[in-house]
Structure formats: structure tokens, C-alpha cells
């Protein structure tokens, strides 16, 4: 009985691992494959020439650079706008507080497809079309939920006794925030920053509306790239697009696993 359970669990784990990692490996290995014929489980040979095809394309290099710039700036701007709000949501009681917290998210649930024309009109009216600022606004919109909810929960979780102790020791409110509250909330802010980075890194539809043809990013190029080239080349793109996110994951795996993300999604 015991061994049966063990075998079943191992089998489940194995299948789940294949289910999740399989498609990625299957796709990624094409980036190094010379040719791959059905129904072989192994390519005919390995090569790096697909990488050269990609790296030599100036559009791709620019798109990568733009993606990185927009994502970084988005995180900084989003933090500047949302962190004070997160603090307010956690520490101040004001009318409509919960409503506002929910609204931040609810509005995002409306499918974007119906909003393009109105958005385009708005951006033209504000002279934001084809500008860096316009693209950044679109990106920041997609990060607000992460940047507000997760840090707000973290600020709430900082024990009051610590802050009061610091205040009793004569620290001013900014000093208390800087040396007590902020450091304790930092892991959550880090998680929020990375979720925001990924959201920005992934944004395609709005970027195309506002940025194209001047500011193309990796995701806006992705559709053409996936279907336009042999599947080996799209595999290379896929790796390029996934590596930054995966790298960031390694950086914060402890915080994310530790429940910082989960905490943020419980509105109190």
C-alpha cells in the first residue's frame, strides 16, 4: 500500500513535470537543431546558425533594447505612482478605500479589443501617440494592480510595535518609514517590481496601437516572428523573450514562494 502510494505520487510528479517543462524543452531545443523530422525524438544535428539569423537582424536588436528600456522605466514610474498609494491603502482609513482597491483590478477585466478607437482618440488628443511617454502610460496601466496590492499587504504586515518602538526612541515619521517600514516591506516591493517588469515585457496590443511603427518591442514583433521564420528561429526568439523573466524569477523565488504574491491578492 505504502509503496503503491509512493509510486503513484512519483508518477504524478513525473507527468506534471513533463506537462509543464515538456513544451518548453521541445520548443527551446529547436533553437539549436539543424533539422527535425517527424517522428524523430532527436534532431539530425545541432547548430548555432539560427542564433546568427536573429542577432544579425537589426530590428530584433532594437526591439530587445526597447523592451528592456520600457520595462525598466515602467517599473520605476509605476513604483513612484503606486507605492505611496499602497502605503495609503494600508495605513489610512478613508471613504471608498475598498471600492478603490477593487476598482483598480476590475477595470482591467474589460477586454481591450473594444477600447482601441477610444484610446487612440485620447492619445492623439493628448499628443501622446508615437511617444515614449504614451507607450509608458500603456505599460504602467498594466502594472498598477501588482504595484498597489502586493506592497499594500506588505505594509499592513509590518508589526506596529516595531514602528512605535522606533518612534518612542525619537525617530520622526520619515525616519520610521525609511528604516523600519520600508526594509520590512522590501521583499514584497521586489516581487511587485518583478511582476510589473514581466507585465510590461509581455504587453503587445496596446504597445502596437500607441508605439507602432516607431517603437516596436519584442512582443509586438513576436507574431510575425513566430509565423514568419522557420520554427527554429522562433525558438530562438522564445528563448530571448523568456530569459529575462526566468532570470528575475531566480532572484525572487524565495519571496514569491514565501507568499508575498499571495498576500497581495487578499484585500483587507
Amino acid at each position: 500500500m505504502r509503496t503503491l502510494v509512493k509510486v503513484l505520487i512519483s508518477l504524478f510528479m513525473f507527468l506534471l513535470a513533463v506537462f509543464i517543462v515538456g513544451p518548453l524543452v521541445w520548443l527551446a531545443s529547436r533553437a539549436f537543431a539543424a533539422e527535425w523530422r517527424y517522428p524523430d525524438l532527436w534532431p539530425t544535428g545541432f547548430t548555432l546558425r539560427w542564433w546568427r539569423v536573429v542577432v544579425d537582424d537589426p530590428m530584433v536588436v532594437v526591439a530587445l533594447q526597447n523592451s528592456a528600456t520600457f520595462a525598466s522605466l515602467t517599473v520605476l514610474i509605476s513604483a513612484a505612482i503606486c507605492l505611496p498609494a499602497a502605503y495609503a491603502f494600508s495605513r489610512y482609513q478613508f471613504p471608498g478605500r475598498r471600492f478603490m482597491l477593487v476598482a483598480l483590478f476590475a477595470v482591467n477585466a474589460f477586454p481591450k479589443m473594444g477600447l482601441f478607437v477610444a484610446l487612440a482618440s485620447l492619445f492623439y488628443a493628448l499628443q501622446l501617440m508615437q511617444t515614449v511617454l504614451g507607450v509608458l502610460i500603456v505599460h504602467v496601466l498594466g502594472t498598477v494592480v501588482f504595484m498597489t496590492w502586493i506592497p499594500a499587504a506588505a505594509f499592513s504586515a509590518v508589526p506596529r510595535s516595531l514602528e512605535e518602538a522606533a518612534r518612542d526612541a525619537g525617530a520622526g515619521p520619515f525616519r520610521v518609514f525609511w528604516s523600519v517600514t520600508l526594509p520590512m516591506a522590501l521583499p514584497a516591493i521586489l516581487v511587485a517590481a518583478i511582476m510589473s517588469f514581466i507585465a510590461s515585457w509581455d504587453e503587445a496590443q496596446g504597445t502596437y496601437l500607441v508605439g507602432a511603427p516607431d517603437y516596436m518591442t519584442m512582443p509586438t514583433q513576436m507574431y510575425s516572428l513566430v509565423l514568419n521564420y522557420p520554427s527554429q528561429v522562433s525558438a530562438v526568439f522564445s528563448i530571448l523573450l523568456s530569459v529575462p523573466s526566468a532570470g528575475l524569477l531566480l532572484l525572487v523565488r524565495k519571496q514569491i514562494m514565501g507568499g508575498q504574491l499571495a498576500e497581495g491578492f487578499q484585500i483587507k
Partner: protein
Amino acid sequence: MSSDPDAGAPVAGAVDDDAPAAAPTSAAATGTLTNPRRVRHRARVRSLRGLLMASPPLLLIAAFTGFPIVLAIAYSLGHTGGLNSTTALIAQHQHVKTEWWGTLGAYREVLTNERFQRDLRVTLLVTVVSTTVVLALALIIALYLRLAGGWAAKALTVVSVVPMFIPVVIASWAVLMFYAPDGFLRSLFAQVGLEGPTFGYTVTAIIIAQVWCSLPFAVLMCASGVQAVPDALIDAARDSGAGLVRTTFSVILPMAFVPIVIAATFTAIGIIGSFTVPYFTGPTAPTMLGVDMANYFTAYNRPQQSIVMAVVVFVAASLIAVTYVWANFRSSKESGA
């Protein structure tokens, strides 16, 4: 696991550190705020300051998402003038308002359309099935991590979070290739001379890809919820003779109820409005409403009908979100007040 010592007991409400009700003692102790009028005044100032600090992201969302949504809904009701005239200029099969408030013509057209009904059914089916599977897998992983622990459980959790960091376009593409006619699954079957199933471009493929993409968030929520159940409670249940299954169903799951509901609602909301996954992996028809919306918008040049569908999806998502809000407030009422 969590660095926060009392993560298990959610902090109730926003604890307002020196709002009168919350901290009368500290106010009295410092001796500066004994005058009730000054206390009230101070509370108002704090309330205003909170509102001010909280408003920038809200204003941003209101201007760049909320306002377009209002316009779009007005347009779906037949208000084709003003700011909507740009859209109305090129659209076909428009319903123009007949009453001061508009017309329900577009809604009537879409809601009675057979394809819409069929695709709505598919959308709901995919949402329900995917959410159920995601939740089941996430709970199994979370419980395994909580009850067995060890490196294998940790590794499994890490693996199940991997999809969170893969862009959706690539995820859909990878899943499609894996289950395509010349993909891994069929290659594997072919090795032993069998004809494997082809899931590429089927509703099954949509569900597989949705599960793949949604699993990480659900795992994180469930794991966090299940981790927070104190050892003492589990041990007590075990000591009183409850088996593994009973402990799970009568102690752990009820304790982790809120995070589980949150996992379910966010997964469902994400799936119900999705476009990329069904577009890449699904069949031409039937498909999910996200794809229909894009088709109505471009391929059939009927933005009004497209927006009607967006409203339907939005309403469905809102209904799901009500569950989320209810679960949250229930929990803060229980632990707080």
C-alpha cells in the same frame, strides 16, 4: 516558510495607527490629543491625506481605461455621435440609438446569434474545466508540499511556477507544437508504432494551454494558504484519530478557504477573457469569445457587436469577482472586528 511571523493570521482592516478608535491609549499617553475636536480634525486630515496619496494610480486608470470603457458601452447602446463618431464612420451593421438612452438592438442581435451562444458555451466550458483542473492540481501540489515536504515537493512547486515567467504568446506556441500532428506526443506514440492523438487546433488544446498558463498563480495562492495552517491544528486532528483525507477536508481546506477562492476567481477571470491562447491553439470554430471579439472587430468590421461581447465577458468576469470580494470581506470580518 514565510518570513512574517504572523502571516497566518491576516491583519484585520487597515489598522489606522492613531485614528481615535484604534489607539485611544497611545493618544492619551502622549498627552497631546486629549481634545476630542482636535482628534476628529486630525482624523479628517489623515483621511484626506490617504485619499490624496491613493488617487494617482486610480486617476490614471480612470482616464486611460475607465473613460474608454464608458465610451465603448455608450457606443454599444447606439450612441454613435461625439467621440464615438470615429468608430461609427467605418463600422457596418450598426444599431443607432432610438431612445434618449440608446437602443438594445446590438445586444439583441448578438445575444440571439447562434454562433455567439455556441461560443459563449465553449467559453464557459473552457473556463469551468480549466479552472477546476488548475485548482485540483494546485491543491494536490500545495497539500503535498505541506504534508510531505522535502526537496521533491519543493522542486515540484518550483517547476509548477515556471509558466508564470513565460510570455503567453510563447506558451501557446510551445503547447501547440508539443501536441501538434508532428509534435512530441505523436512522435512518442510513433516510436512504438501507435497513432497518437492530435490535440493541436482543438478545444482540448485550448484547455491544456489555459491550464499550463494559469497553474503558477493558483499554486502560489493555494500553497500560501495551506502553509498558513498551523502545525498544532493538523497534529491535533491527527491525534484525535482523523486520517489524512479527513484532516485535509475538515481542517486544512476550510482554513485555507479564502486563498483557494481567490485562486479560483482570478484563474477564471483570466481565462474567460483570454484571446492569445484560443487564437493560437484553438480550432477555427467553435472558439472562445476573445477570438470572436477580434473577428467581429476586424474581419467582419462590426465593432459595435464586438463591444457587446466585451460587455458580456466583463459582466461574467464581474460576477466571478463578486465571489472574490465576498470571500475577502468574509475573511476580514472573521479575523478582524
